[in-house]
């Protein structure tokens, strides 16, 4: 069974998914970060494959991507680093990135490497759903990879249904129409969260964008199966002198 499905089966609530950019703050920090996240009590890891022009991301994640690229991170390097990581890490791992680098790497080759290293799911915000359905779905399925799509407050009910039918693992509910790392009030989003909840989707729902502390995490969890934290975590480690303790205290601050 895919580790994402296994996770939601074992623990349907209060899932904490942490995003970090691969190769950031330093090129070889990625595995240390994942391991520390696991020890600290995170439930899932989303690894960003850095891209020079990350449209859906705000300045914090863009800056981390720029640094990671300068550090030498690239998809082929990431797969090198991930070789054998399953000996140490059991958390479900998702790779997040933009279509262009994946296209240049080759979609089939990319999926194959994901499967071989032990990656469970993929998020590609700029991959059109129709193109996934007609061109790439069989490739992702062949390698047992879950593709996770986003929904927003502006997504129509019919489209949410369609997204739910094509997504596997979970549906990523963007908390408000925004790029990552925007400070927006979760309170405004109650109607949207309730609407999603009442739709009784086949997939679990994780809420992301704007989750930054215990309060926003709990607000998200009250309406879904959990939440994804990105920019706040990247900020917490960007200038850290002791990665492990920074990560531990960050996760404790959210869950403790």
């Amino acid at each position, binding site marked *: 069974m895919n580790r994402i499905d296994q996770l939601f089966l074992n623990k349907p609530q209060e899932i904490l998914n942490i995003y970090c950019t691969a190769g950031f703050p330093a090129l070889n920090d990625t595995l240390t970060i994942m391991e520390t996240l696991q020890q600290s009590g995170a439930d899932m890891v989303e690894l960003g494959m850095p891209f020079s022009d990350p449209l859906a991301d705000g300045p914090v994640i863009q800056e981390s991507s720029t640094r990671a690229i300068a550090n030498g991170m690239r998809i082929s390097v990431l797969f090198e680093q991930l070789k054998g990581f399953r000996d140490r890490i059991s958390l479900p791992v998702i790779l997040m990135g933009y279509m262009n680098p994946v296209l240049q790497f080759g979609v089939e080759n990319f999926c194959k490497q994901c499967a071989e290293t032990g990656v469970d799911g993929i998020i590609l915000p700029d991959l059109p759903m129709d193109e996934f359905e007609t061109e790439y779905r069989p490739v992702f399925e062949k390698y047992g990879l879950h593709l996770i799509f986003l929904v927003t407050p*502006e*997504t129509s009910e019919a489209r949410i249904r369609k997204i739910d039918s094509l997504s596997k693992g979970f549906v990523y509910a963007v908390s408000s129409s*925004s*790029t990552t790392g925007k400070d927006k009030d979760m309170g405004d989003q109650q109607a949207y969260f309730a609407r999603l909840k009442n739709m009784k989707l086949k997939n679990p729902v994780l809420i992301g964008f704007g989750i930054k502390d215990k309060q926003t995490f709990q607000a998200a969890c009250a309406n879904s199966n959990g939440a994804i934290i990105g920019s706040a975590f990247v900020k917490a480690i960007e200038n850290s002198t002791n990665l492990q303790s920074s990560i531990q205290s960050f996760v404790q601050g959210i869950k403790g």
Partner: protein
Amino acid sequence: MDIAVNTSHSKYHVNDKGYYGRFGGAYIPEMLYPNVEELKEQYLQIIGEPAFQAEFEQLLKDYVGRPSPLFFAKRLSEKYKANIYLKREDLNHTGAHKVNNTIGQILLAQRLGKKKIIAETGAGQHGVATATVCALMGLECVVYMGSIDIERQAPNVARMKMLGATVVAATSGSKTLKDATNEAIRHWINHPVDTHYIIGSVVGPHPYPDMVARFQSVVSEEMRKQLEEKTGNTNPDYVIACVGGGSNAAGAFFHYLDEEKVKLVAVEAAGKGVNSGFSAATSQLGKMGIIHASKTLLMQTEDGQIVEPHSISAGLDYPGVGPLHAHLYETGRAQFLNATDDEALAAAYELSLLEGIIPALESAHALAKLKDLPLKPEDVVVVCLSGRGDKDLETYIKHLK
């Protein structure tokens, strides 16, 4: 006005899925889906409405000053031994072809009920044209511009501000047009409901490349009529236009795309030389990739990171081309040449001295290739003079020897 011309059977126009051959599409994050879908569903119908066309035509005539003249450049013709005409887009209100598109899009935005406008700009021509139509229609306007371009195009920044627009500096990446576009798209993601994004070139997700090309097609539509009056034939032998994203070229080529006898020449910015590492000649240096939500030719590293382009002209300083142009390149329908910074400067001085017209640096790239074409004395050549050079004076002065 012929902007809703039936193009569905042409192999050079967009298909119903938003592609030109292998290029095009809409690679957008879900946050933009409703906006782009709304546009896609409505743009053809809206711009096909007689009331829309009448208003568009009226504004082009009385506000922009169209039709722009087709000028027979006698001394230039003598020099290059052919019949060279200049399509004078530099005489449009705001000084470039960009306003044709912003007039169209502002009318569209009104009909979609949008209250705020965002735009990106490189040379500032599109930003000025957008700020202008926003002032005309009383809409709020935010223009993103790379911080490097803000420096090198100061007069246009001042114009935008005087027209009431807020100019926001894009400070990421190369701090030029590509990054201004990223920032504008991000702004749109953060303000999706009441905001329309007026893209200035034939780039971006479908339907933008097709929509912008249709608004700019007024250029080739006029060229046909004017050529017939002047030469007795609607078709020239050559149409030459510069290409950054490619909107003026799309407009100049539009009605000739299926007239295979008309040679279409697209001139890209070679910067300091195609292989110098400081170039924006996408067709030579790029390969298939995705930039600003469409699949097209793109300058990129082996890993798919977008490469920083270089051109002396801010308007051509872009690492991609529109998907239509990628298709024209791949099918060989258009010939793609490139001009260096120095060639463009020389062509600008030459036109100034021979015809009393100071062209925009962008347009000077197109003029620079007259010397490289196998022109015959009977050939009729139209160069799209996409904009005027006032905004580039500082660069011209700096390089004047």
